[in-house]
């Protein structure tokens, strides 16, 4: 089955079975290997990407469900996103394997809640497991990213992209 989708702004045509999970399309067909395989059943969040701006678990999202849609992966954040900067400034990563998913969840959280409460952070981030134990730093990094975004919005008069 041939499916067209956009990944990080680039149009792609994928020729794989329609039930192929998006995760493996991204890793094996597109080559965006920043998205990670952790559990295969939407339990750990390592595979989190954005589908038309919303965070989804790509390991349980079939290719057919993303036909004609727009996907953003960690590579699509550009490297200098305020959340990525905050992650480095708080020294969040340890092994780093879950962090693509953590960052994608945090970006989505901050888009809907620019100044999230602790409960909102817990709600939005509890689907992402980190076995190294970086949760306390993720909390700090989200607060820091929130300040970055606020400062940028003040300076530029507009929100952060993407």
């Amino acid at each position, binding site marked *: 089955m041939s499916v067209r989708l956009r990944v990080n702004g680039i149009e792609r045509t994928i020729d*794989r*079975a329609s*039930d*192929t*999970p998006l995760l*493996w399309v991204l*890793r*094996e067909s597109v*080559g*965006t*290997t*920043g*998205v*990670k*395989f*952790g*559990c*295969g*059943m939407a*339990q*750990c969040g*390592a595979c989190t990407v954005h589908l038309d701006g919303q965070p989804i678990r790509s390991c349980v999202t079939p290719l057919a469900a993303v036909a004609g849609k727009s996907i953003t*992966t*960690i*590579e699509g*954040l550009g*490297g200098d996103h305020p959340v*990525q900067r905050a*992650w*480095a*400034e708080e*020294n*969040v*990563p*340890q*092994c*780093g*394997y*879950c*962090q*693509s998913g953590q*960052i994608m969840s945090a970006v989505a959280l901050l888009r809907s809640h620019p100044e999230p409460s602790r409960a909102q*952070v*817990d*709600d939005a*981030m*509890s*689907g*992402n*497991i*980190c*076995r*190294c*134990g*970086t*949760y*306390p*730093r*993720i*909390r700090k990094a989200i607060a820091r990213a929130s300040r970055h975004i606020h400062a940028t919005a003040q300076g530029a008069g507009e929100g952060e992209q993407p």
Partner: protein
Amino acid sequence: MTTRRSFLKGTAGASAALYVGFQLPGCSSDSAKASRRFQPNAFLEATVHGSIIFTLARVEMGQGTLTSETMMVAEELGMDPEAIEIRFAPADPAFRNPMFGVQGTGGSTSTASSFEILRKAGAVMREAFIGAAASAFGVDRAQVRFQDGQLVDTASQRALHFKELVDQAHVHLDEDAEPKPRSEWRILGRSRPRLDNRSKTTGTAVFGADAGPSDAEVAVVLRGPYGSHLLGFEAQDAEAVDGVLAIFEISNGVAVVATGYPEAMKGAKKVKTEWSKSEFSTESMWTEYAEILNQGSASDIRSEGSALSSEDGALEAEYRLPFLAHAPMEPPVATAWVRELGADIWLPTQGPGGVAVAVAKLTGLGMDSVRVHSTLLGGAFGRKSYVDYASEAVEVAMRRDKPVRLQWSREDDIRFGYFRQASLHRLRGALSEGRASHWEHRIVAETAMYDVIPDMLSEIMPRFVTKAAVWSMKTFSDDPSIVEGAKDLPYAIPNLRVGYATAEGPVKCAFWRAVGHSHNGFVVESFVDELAHAAGQDPVDFRRGLLEAHPRHLGVLELAVQEAGWGQAVPEGHALGVAVHHSFGSYVAEVAEVSMEEGRPRVHKVTAAVDCGTVMNPDGVKAQIEGGIIFGLSAAMTQEAISFEGGAVQQSNFHDFQALRMNECPDIEVHIVESDAPPTGVGEPGLPPIAAAVGNAIFALTGRRLRSLPFELV
């Protein structure tokens, strides 16, 4: 090459092995090669293009070696660590861990084992460049400084970049070069950002499945219950699945090879396998363990004073800890490519040396035809010390013309890995005049050592010798994976017995973060608390009274309780619990603040103090202690436990083998004790005290003593 011996003067004797087999290009007769780069030792290379290349021998699995070890050489070279190019070590005797004798990362040994060697390696390179510069300037070497890549004559301010001296430096090789004294440190001892932050926040970091040829085929393996073997399989339906390329038996089960992972999984679901029956169950195991202790089969390995008699009014308790999977976020994976003249393998591994031996053995190739390409590890916690997944990849690749990536699913990881062994502990204690007078601790568990030690030793000795070595270890020394943290009880208790029995079972047991300390830290620190309460004493005062001979235990205990506000008011419905434990050379005390919410404990805050001797990167130490605490909390507070029925693991993924999540994670504060002592590890020592600290707080709050993990959360 005789100069290499003197190069090692001043370093630990065991480290001599580190340089065996390494050729110094600087001494080579190949002058063209020598003039393009200066490589004074296995770890450092300077090029005419102005690069300093550092080869990292202790793999990066999250614990921060990539940053802290680069800081060690950067300090000696007077360079920004960011300016140093880092490469991962191939399998080579030059990169063996002197604390193990094999090329392995684990046991919280990286900093301790590298501290002298890497600073020395950096000092030798620096002094060689200074010598070359002094000669070029025609001045005394004492007036030449090496800073940020420039060699500066401090008198005339003339400067040369090191790249202009690459072809001269080997002439000035001074094997007696001394590392800088701590008073001159500008890099070590100060917190600095991790060098892998950028790659790990942009998705560019290369983990196991991201490495190797992009056209690799993908294989998965169907494996059977513990204690069973494959009787047969039927693959006709599976072979018809689109993308499935081949299905065949390998030593661990049935391999399904396909064009991609989902295709391989689809095929695997259609393979029918038949396994022989296995009787192993955790329920019958616990009965058997109790029987072993009932019969007094645990033999004492520490015996002081007299045994408890019936008049001593003993306090008795039984503690129980389950099998545990490591469940690193990156499941095991390896990509192998086997050709007639050589083999390559790309994988995340704690033991590249052992992998090379396994590949050579399976393929029949010589060691020099095997190339191990280490990647970053997406977590390991001990799991990636083993060569099982590498061997599977090689076995499959030997049957294919193309490279093959062997991918474990999460279900495979939870069901078929090596596990932290389950253990049953019986303790008896007695008090006399408010002090502990008697302590008895007897343990039964499977070993986590001897399933794997032969594999590890095969890197350095023939198989028949490894068998003899294991026999002698088993016969003449205690099994650390069972007794560490119990045998070395620090408390001054005059009448003491510690003993253990090794259980036999089909489960492959393994090093799991903090190994023996992962169970004994909980048991010992909970039972000390039981004695303190029985004595009607404050748990901190009680410990103080028994730790007078152990200033470093006391140091972390005092710092942690002071920072946590022990003895001061806590919020209504909250209570504090404390524990202190020494492991892997480091000392950690933790205070947990806990409340009960709808009958379940909630940990609000953990205050930790650590004494790990001289600190390389304080923020890195804090991150590791935080990580150890959370890993330990995960095993205590969530349904994280492995059980067996008919030899099969009853859990399969993160829904039934749970891990701590953000909403359950407390605030954590880590305080570091100032110290000039030699550096010791931090990857594991944060873990052992935490379950006890939480359990002790739950007792203070509810009067209920929880003696098994995970805590029964009702």
